[in-house]
Structures are given as C-alpha cells and as structure tokens.
C-alpha cells in the first residue's frame, strides 16, 4: 500500500495499463483475424449482443482506445499539473478500497469467463472485450472522479 502513496507510481501504473488496452483496441479494430473470431451476426436473438458484436465488427473499438488515451491524458494532467505529490492516509484508504473492489470483480470475472467458454462460447470474444473495456474505463473514470474530489 505504500506504493499507492506516491501519485507518480499511480500515474505510471495507469499509463502502462492504458497503453496496453488502447494499443489492443486500436490494433484489433480493423484486424481481419480478430474480426473473424467474432460470432456470426444474429447467432442469438439478442439485440444487445448483436448490437455490440456489430459495433466491434464495424471497427469501432478504436474509439474506445482513443477514449482510454484521452482519459489517461486528463488524469496525467491533473496529477502532474496539480500540487499533489503524495497522498495522505485517508486518500490511500479510499484508493485501497477501490483497488480491493476492482480485484474482487476481476476474481469474479474469471470463473464467469471459464464457464462461458466451456458451456456456450457464443459471443465469448465480445463478452471479454466488453468486460475489459468496461472494467478499465470504470477504473479511469473512478480515478478521475477521485482526483477531482480529493
């Protein structure tokens, strides 16, 4: 938890994960091999999953990548242009709780993904993409709100 105290360490961690996700989302958005892994359109009679699958197939994942880059830049600006260098113990306690919540969600995701792959692999790639994008965007928005509030 001592690492959390240093805002630069927070920035480096967020920057690294954002770089990986944004690269992946931008790179796969028009990648034929990736697009071929998606479920055939209208595999299930589900407007949501068909809509999400079509969204990915149309190459729109790159916009999620751009959104991640934009949010990360805003977080960097708030960290480095603000006067905060180190967080105090109250701020660290809030960050720790957020981290624990994120870890619990990640732990829950794993068996769900395993069951999904083994039982009904339809829309598996779409589901993983949705969970990954949703989770990291949630982390970025939460951290941004944290910076603005605390």
């Amino acid at each position, binding site marked *: 938890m001592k690492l959390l105290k240093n805002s630069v360490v927070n920035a480096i961690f967020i920057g690294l994960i954002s770089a990986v996700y944004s690269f992946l989302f931008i790179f796969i958005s028009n990648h034929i091999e990736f697009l071929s892994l998606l479920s055939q359109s209208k595999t299930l009679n589900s407007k949501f999953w068909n809509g999400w699958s079509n969204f990915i197939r149309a190459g729109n994942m790159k916009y999620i990548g751009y959104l991640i880059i934009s949010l990360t830049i805003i977080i960097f600006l708030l960290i480095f242009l603000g006067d905060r260098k180190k967080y105090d113990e109250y*701020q660290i306690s809030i960050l720790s709780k957020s981290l624990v919540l994120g870890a619990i969600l990640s732990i829950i995701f794993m068996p769900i993904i395993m069951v999904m792959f083994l039982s009904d692999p339809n829309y598996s790639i779409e589901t993983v993409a949705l969970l990954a994008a949703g989770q990291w965007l949630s982390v970025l928005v939460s951290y941004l709100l944290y910076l603005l509030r605390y």
Partner: protein
Amino acid sequence: MKNKLKVLREEHGLTQAQLGEKVNVSRQAINAIENGKFDPSIWLAYDLAKFFAMSIEEVFNFEESARK
C-alpha cells in the same frame, strides 16, 4: 471514532484545511476524522494530539467508540 477534534480546531480558530496543513494531511482527511468516518493511524493521532498539546486519549474517546 468519537473525538474532540472539531471543538479543539474551532477553539484554535483553524479551518479544516489549516489544521490539515499543520499535520500534513488533506482537508478531506480532517473532515472525515471529525465526522467519525475515518480512524487515523496512531502517528496521525499522535501528531494531532501533539499539536493541541494533549494526550491521544484526551483527543480521541476510546471508551465510547466501538472497537473495529
């Protein structure tokens, strides 16, 4: 944890931000301690008590607070 921080701070004519600066924490941390939402570490409790020239037990009411 129940405490006299708000009373002591107001007696010294300090804002939450000013008291936070004295003990190197944020205004939000002081606010959370005053409202019993956050239990400070032993070192922060020591710093606060030292600033008011009191013992930790005089600032923080251990007897009437629930043990966590």
